[in-house]
């Protein structure tokens, strides 16, 4: 092999094949020649756009947690709940494990994710490296698979359909906020963390 700097290389996370990195153009996706795993994809979002998205997501997240998700009616009585209502009910009903799981995957991790990405981007747009950059990035890597807002939206739909047989069901603003949040989360789940890492490399040199 000729001498190539390690920065010009990338290694497939799934099969350990070494690839040369190529500059990506719009809409391109780099796939591993050996196993077909996605290596990297081009995205046109700069730090400012991303920051705007994260702020939007935060506003929607607050709405999604403040407003009730669904209201049930039975003979003139009404009952509605928010995410935290469900978490507290599970705790009181001796299902603390579920309560903690729901609180972590639907509230604390998504919130932590938004704050961390927002923090990093806030400094990135000023071309500075955020304080605590490395521990934050490592934390983001580990909490990545443990946010489940999109599953919760589908769960709310199933709950509505199940309840509809016996009760009058009204979908409340919370469920719409959750649906929007899911779309936003999907957008910034596509962000390549490597790009943030490399932003730091450029600064420090």
């Amino acid at each position, binding site marked *: 092999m000729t001498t190539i700097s390690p920065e010009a290389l990338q290694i497939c996370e799934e099969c350990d094949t070494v690839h040369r990195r190529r500059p990506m153009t719009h809409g391109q996706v780099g796939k591993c020649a050996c*196993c077909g795993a996605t290596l990297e994809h081009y995205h046109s979002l700069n730090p400012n756009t991303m920051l705007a998205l994260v702020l939007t997501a935060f506003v929607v997240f607050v709405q999604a947690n403040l407003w009730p998700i669904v209201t049930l009616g039975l003979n003139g009585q009404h*009952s509605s709940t928010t995410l935290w209502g469900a978490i507290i009910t599970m705790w009181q*009903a001796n299902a603390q494990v579920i309560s903690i*799981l729901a609180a972590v995957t639907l509230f604390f991790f998504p919130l932590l994710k938004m704050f961390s990405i927002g923090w990093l981007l806030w400094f990135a747009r000023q071309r500075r490296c955020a304080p605590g950059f490395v521990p934050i990035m490592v934390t983001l890597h580990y909490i990545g698979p443990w946010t489940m807002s999109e599953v919760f939206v589908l769960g709310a739909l*199933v*709950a509505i359909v199940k309840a509809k047989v016996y009760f009058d069901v009204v979908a409340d603003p919370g469920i719409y906020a959750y649906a929007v949040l899911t779309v936003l989360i999907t957008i910034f789940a596509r962000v390549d963390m490597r790009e943030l890492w490399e932003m730091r490399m450029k600064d420090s040199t």
Partner: protein
Amino acid sequence: MSTLPRAADMGLISCHVCRLVCRAVPDSEDTEVDNVCPRCGSALHRRKPGSYARTWALLLAAFMMYVPANLLPIMRTASLNDVDDNTILSGVMELWVNGSADLAVIVFVASIMVPMLKFLVLGTLLISSHRRTDWAQLQRAKLYRLVEFIGYWSMLDVFVVALLSALVRFNLLSRVEPLPGVIFFGLTVVLTMLASMSFDPRLIWDSRDSDD
């Protein structure tokens, strides 16, 4: 296929956390832990450490939780004159009969098929990789990606039970309460997620070394 260069052969290691390409310190083949990523400070490993043992352990633990998760009721619906305990399967059937068939299919897939699929796929991957066979490598890689992607959708039923328990609280008229099955089911999902994370898909391709 065997012409593609592999990192392990070139003395390179990709950091599992930040994906920086690092040079492996040559003399530390046995003590890989000494290699540390210069960018994020995480320990560098050629392969995830103890992948087989960890994945087997987590998978077996998940299966032990999966049995009570399906046998025990996950939810109690109580009204004035009857009390009804639902298991996962009876919940699907109720949805099929009363509600909408498409949602019944979604819940069936998420709660029953996905965990089963994970046990089968991860079991197959573990056994075949351990035997270092080069049988259907591309298909096995795809199966692994599928398992990683669908993993957390099984939490669906857990969230349904949580929401219904919080919503249906009309004192004597109608109540929904979670039952122990849902705890076992939640644990099954978490354990299978941990199992698929600790499996190292590079092991699928490690028979390539012996080809050359």
